[in-house]
């Protein structure tokens, strides 16, 4: 009896959450799967179309461009957004002054709504009176086309993205660095390890778990990049910034092809889950 009663109360407390999750999290996950095999205009009842949505997406000329741009973006964004915050955190951790100020400043852009950062940088990237070319001009350097050239557009997006996101990674690393027991450094020093060796043999191994976790999280986040191409380039020039997420949005809301958007989403999910599985294995190996 008390067991039943406890369960009843518990489910009483849980019911709101269960409802929210069921309708707005679990069902959409299943719906995603169903949607990718259907054709629907959301008004008439959907029809089953087998693998048509997948073949439409794969045969779309922008499909290859989108994966290429997404992978390039992810790679560049990791090169900046993954490595840089760690280096910055290591250096910040060595500083004895202005720490509060530096932490505040580096995290400030993270607090801004992304639309603010994006529209602000759109102005900076302006090849004419934009800030970046003006600064380059000040140093007598030639201006760049930034968003307006297929060679620099993607890098420009990486710059915005790094600027507005790197604060959180930096602070997480910083916290992890502060958890490293100082005895380890002292011991390493007694063993005659130089600075580089201390980083390699103490700092990195001690933060390995968090480094792996952040790698995973950042891959997942950057592979879904949307707002930057949506607001800044419209996928151009020459499809150099069409990301998978952007293409998915196009499918759904420019062409109203929800089925193909679902199919593209499925593919994106499979790729991301593969990354996750790979990461999980790395961590597990780490533990054994």
């Amino acid at each position: 009896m008390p067991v039943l009663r406890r369960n009843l109360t518990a489910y009483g407390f849980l019911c709101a959450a269960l409802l929210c999750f069921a309708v707005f999290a679990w069902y959409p996950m299943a719906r995603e799967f169903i949607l990718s095999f259907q054709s629907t205009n959301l008004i008439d009842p959907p029809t089953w179309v087998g693998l048509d949505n997948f073949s439409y997406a794969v045969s779309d000329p922008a499909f290859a461009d989108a994966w290429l741009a997404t992978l390039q973006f992810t790679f560049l964004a990791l090169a900046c957004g993954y490595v840089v915050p760690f280096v910055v955190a290591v250096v910040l951790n060595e500083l004895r002054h202005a720490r509060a100020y530096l932490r505040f400043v580096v995290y400030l852009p993270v607090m801004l709504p992304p639309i603010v950062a994006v529209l602000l940088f759109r102005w900076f990237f302006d090849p004419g009176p934009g800030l970046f070319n003006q600064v380059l001009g000040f140093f007598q350097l030639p201006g760049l086309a930034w968003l307006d050239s297929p060679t620099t557009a993607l890098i420009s997006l990486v710059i915005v993205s790094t600027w507005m996101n790197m604060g959180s990674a930096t602070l997480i690393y910083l916290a992890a660095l502060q958890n490293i027991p100082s005895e380890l450094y002292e011991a390493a020093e007694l063993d005659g390890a130089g600075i580089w060796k201390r980083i390699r043999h103490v700092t990195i191994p001690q933060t390995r778990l968090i480094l792996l976790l952040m790698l995973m999280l950042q891959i997942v986040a950057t592979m879904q990049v949307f707002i930057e191409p949506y607001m800044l380039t419209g996928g151009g020039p020459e499809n150099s910034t069409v990301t998978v997420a952007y293409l998915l949005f196009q499918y759904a809301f420019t062409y109203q092809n929800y089925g193909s958007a679902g199919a593209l989403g499925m593919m994106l999910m499979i790729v991301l889950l593969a990354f996750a599985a790979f990461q999980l294995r790395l961590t597990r190996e780490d533990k054994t």
Partner: protein
Amino acid sequence: MISVGARAGTRRGRARRRRGRPIESQFRTIISPLQLNSRWGRRIYWAVLVTIVVSFTLIFLFPLYWMITGAMKTGEEIAQMPPTLFPAEPTLDSYVEAWDLFDLGTLLWNTAYYSFGGWLFCMAVDVSAAYALSRLRPMFGGVILGAMLATLMIPAMVVLIPLYVTVVDLGLLNNPWGLWFPAAANGFNIFLLKRFFDSIPRELIEAAQIDGAGPLRVLWSVVLPISRPILGVVSIFTIVTSFKDFVWPLLVMTDSDKMTLSVGLSQTAGMVSQNAIMGGLVVASVPTIIVFFIFQRHIMAGLTAGSIKG
């Protein structure tokens, strides 16, 4: 704690300036205090410190300065090449213009309403769920928690379309509940809260139960007061996240008088002048920056709350 120490450190350093006093370390890091206080160590340290402070200011603060002053320039001045570092005749006109053109009053009100409403609903749902899972331990509790956490594995962009289709089916477009329901289905919040509730000593709760308190009363007068720190962190993140959100409100709140700030800015930005855009951006950044100033410590603590020891 750390920040206080560091601030004191700066003050002392400034008072004495260079030489003399050694650089104090409160904790051991890669470089030993001895190395740091050697002649070259000290020179390099100060060089690095100055470089970092200057470059961080330039990289992270200067863009904001440029935004604020850009909005104070006239249309001609803002397009001028080379640009002026200070507005020649600072004016607040573009803020006024932005306020009208973007209808910022409505947008701000909408966004605040959605954020706080969503926060209330989200907290009510997630706290009671976490409480049930942590303290009442129902049958299949583990499975439910697992299923909730599993949603974190699914990338947001992937469920965007099916979630949207679901909301369309339910007729929740242009309805705040279209934002609030999905926001409440937040596995991470439940995870954080549950973990904290787990750590509450059992004796406290048993003592209350002996006094005849039912589950609701235990939650309200024992668990919640103890959990203030985690509630603060979760609250701030919930509010800030919903304030910053873009893609979902873009899809759900399409009426021009129901849009959020971010969506409203993006919709109108193509049609107004550069200085008015900057004015709008400044107004849009003020609320989150204020929140950051006030709750800085909580936010930074919250950042690491869930991620460490993953």
